[in-house]
């Protein structure tokens, strides 16, 4: 059986395909079929020929095998310094071999590549900072994921995830109707407490176009309400888009570049249609990475810039606090020790470390940095899609240990984690290890301490 009915080289473009995959509980049949999946060696060789160019080939060739990348990798450290977790070994034994053998590899090898690309690397890009040559194995594993995806060797959840983007232009099965209804519902919910609060849909020329993560719509719509309340308090002229409202990209984690392009183009279309001054993402790391940093290249923008200026939620919060649009009641600042989880996707890869510290200076009295921190921080343990892959749950949970120890060393009781993946990983960390910490996004935290202007308060009866 070269191609399975579930595990195959065809991406998910229809509801039927999606339903079939979803009804395969935990991907049991999917992974059984994967054992039989043929490698299209010719296609693999062609892909390498066409896309593996001088940057990556040079990285693979000049690697001095010095091992200086080893302790840059959280998986190497947390797995008792297992040499098989050395980043250079991981990439040489996967992509290095594929290139050397010109695509002449078999099923078992591709499964090893898949397991390595998704369970031993979260594409956090930390190793790239520690290599004297600047060899960034996170970038290479991102590339490897694309090769794997094209061959059908992709974790079940991510095949579904990229299918969601292809069908719904969102990471979950949330339709445009669901989205608009949720906005209306959240608006109505706030009527009593926040008279005049609106979640404006499709307003042209707004100052801010707010984009969200579909999981907020599906699982915690209160996040949308919280965003709306904070914009309301800050007096922002903002809007959301009825189409192109979702800016995440599980397809980036899956290596499904065609779906990445489809997804990001719908977001860019909404920017072009609504002509906002700026676009702002929710508290999500990979969304910023996908739509703001990588998306322009998928969409073919030579400038490397999205159609309008895009900012991460933390940038808006820092700006609102700086300019006094949001005022913090000093009495309600956090008194307990608090730490901040630097997200790889917008701190290391987006340069927003200072912005995050600026926010902290307004909201916390006893801030404790993790060690290492900022650009050098370790991945939360759940990045790159790893949080959501059942097959690699043991590896994911093992990786959480490094974050647990970092947090414990700060003696902080609260972890501020303005990134969905980090937030999830830290929640799971508490479930696994019970270290008695709490974790939070910025929105609920700000709402607990922001000063509400008199005119926005509901009238007394």
């Amino acid at each position, binding site marked *: 059986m070269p191609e399975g009915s579930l595990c195959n080289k065809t991406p998910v473009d229809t509801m039927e395909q999606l339903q079939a995959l979803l009804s395969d509980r935990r991907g049991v049949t999917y992974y059984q079929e994967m054992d039989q999946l043929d490698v299209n060696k010719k296609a693999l060789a062609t892909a390498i020929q066409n896309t593996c160019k001088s*940057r990556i080939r040079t990285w693979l060739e000049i*690697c001095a*095998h*010095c091992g200086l990348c080893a302790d840059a990798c959280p998986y190497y450290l947390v797995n008792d310094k297992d*040499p098989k977790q050395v980043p250079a070994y991981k990439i*040489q034994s996967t992509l290095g071999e594929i290139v050397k053998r010109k695509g002449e590899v078999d099923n078992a090898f591709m499964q090893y590549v898949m397991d390595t690309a998704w369970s031993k690397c979260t594409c956090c890009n930390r190793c790239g900072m520690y290599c004297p040559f600047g060899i960034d194995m996170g970038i290479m594993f991102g590339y490897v994921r694309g090769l794997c995806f094209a061959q059908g060797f992709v974790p079940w959840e991510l095949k579904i995830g990229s299918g969601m983007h292809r069908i719904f232009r969102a990471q979950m099965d949330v339709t445009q109707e669901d989205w608009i209804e949720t906005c209306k519902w959240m608006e109505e919910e706030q009527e009593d407490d926040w008279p005049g609060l609106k979640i404006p849909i499709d307003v042209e020329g707004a100052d801010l176009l707010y984009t969200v993560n579909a999981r907020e719509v599906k699982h915690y719509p209160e996040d949308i309400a919280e965003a709306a309340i904070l914009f309301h308090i800050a007096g922002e002229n903002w809007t959301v888009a009825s189409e192109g409202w979702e800016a995440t990209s599980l397809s980036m984690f899956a290596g499904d570049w065609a779906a990445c392009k489809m997804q990001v183009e719908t977001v860019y279309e909404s920017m072009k249609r609504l002509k906002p001054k700026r676009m702002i993402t929710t508290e999500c790391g990979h969304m910023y990475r996908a739509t703001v940093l990588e998306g322009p290249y998928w969409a073919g923008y*030579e400038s490397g810039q999205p159609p309008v200026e895009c900012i991460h939620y933390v940038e808006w919060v820092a700006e609102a606090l700086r300019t006094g649009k949001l005022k913090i009641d000093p009495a309600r600042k956090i008194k307990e020790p608090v730490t901040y989880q630097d997200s790889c996707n917008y701190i290391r890869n*987006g*340069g927003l470390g200072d912005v995050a510290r600026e926010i902290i200076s307004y909201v916390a009295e006893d801030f404790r940095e993790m060690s290492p921190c900022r650009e050098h921080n370790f991945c939360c343990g759940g990045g790159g899609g790893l949080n959501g892959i059942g097959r690699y749950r043991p590896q994911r949970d093992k990786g959480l240990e490094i974050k647990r120890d970092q947090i414990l060393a700060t003696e902080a009781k609260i972890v501020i984690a303005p990134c969905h993946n980090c937030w999830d990983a830290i929640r799971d960390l508490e479930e696994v290890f019970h270290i008695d910490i709490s974790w939070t996004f910025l929105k609920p935290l700000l709402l607990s301490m922001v000063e509400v202007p008199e005119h926005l308060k509901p009238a007394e009866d």
Partner: protein
Amino acid sequence: MYQFLTGPLLWLSFLIFFIGLIVRVVWYVRGLSWQMDRVPYTKHVSHGVKGALRSIFFWLLPFGTRRWKTRPAMTILFFVFHIGIVITPIFLLAHNIILRERWGISWATLPGPVADTLTIGVLVSALFLVLRRVAFSEVRILTSAYDYLLLAITVAPFFTGFLASLKVEGYLFWLYAHIISAEIMLIAIPLTKLSHIVLFFMSRGQLGMDYGIKRGGMKGRGLAW
């Protein structure tokens, strides 16, 4: 013999060395793709150049980066090894005498004891580089015979040249061995990963541009090397 080794064979070695390295650089630059690499190399040039230069500069500075600071022993090995390899042959008095005899040009030279110290530094640090390949599991797993071969090719001219300079017994043998091993090294450089003598600058510059333009550089915070 001497005439041949330092005549046609030396010319050939230098020819392969220089042309090979030029080919390497041209191939590297031509293979860059703004879309595939997701770095707009030709846009935002000032950010890109700044990022590239910072990246190269701080990594060439001993203890200039976090990596060099957190691994001081390796840093010392690395710089003793590389400084000796680059400085010694270029500023060696003996090499400059040959240049003056042949072409009538020469430049500043190292005092003998300094050249000797640098050479011994290369040899000793090479020994430690071998030892760490054997001793440390994270290096051992990456190491193959090829790595030792390249190290041998690199060290041989220094070892043989040092012995020749001591005028030990069999001077002529060590002199010829020195010339031949140096020519092997010159030829090997563009053909092997020793090509990093130019590709280091390419690769570092590339990642520097990536961070300088895309990954935070335009937010005023490039990578904290």
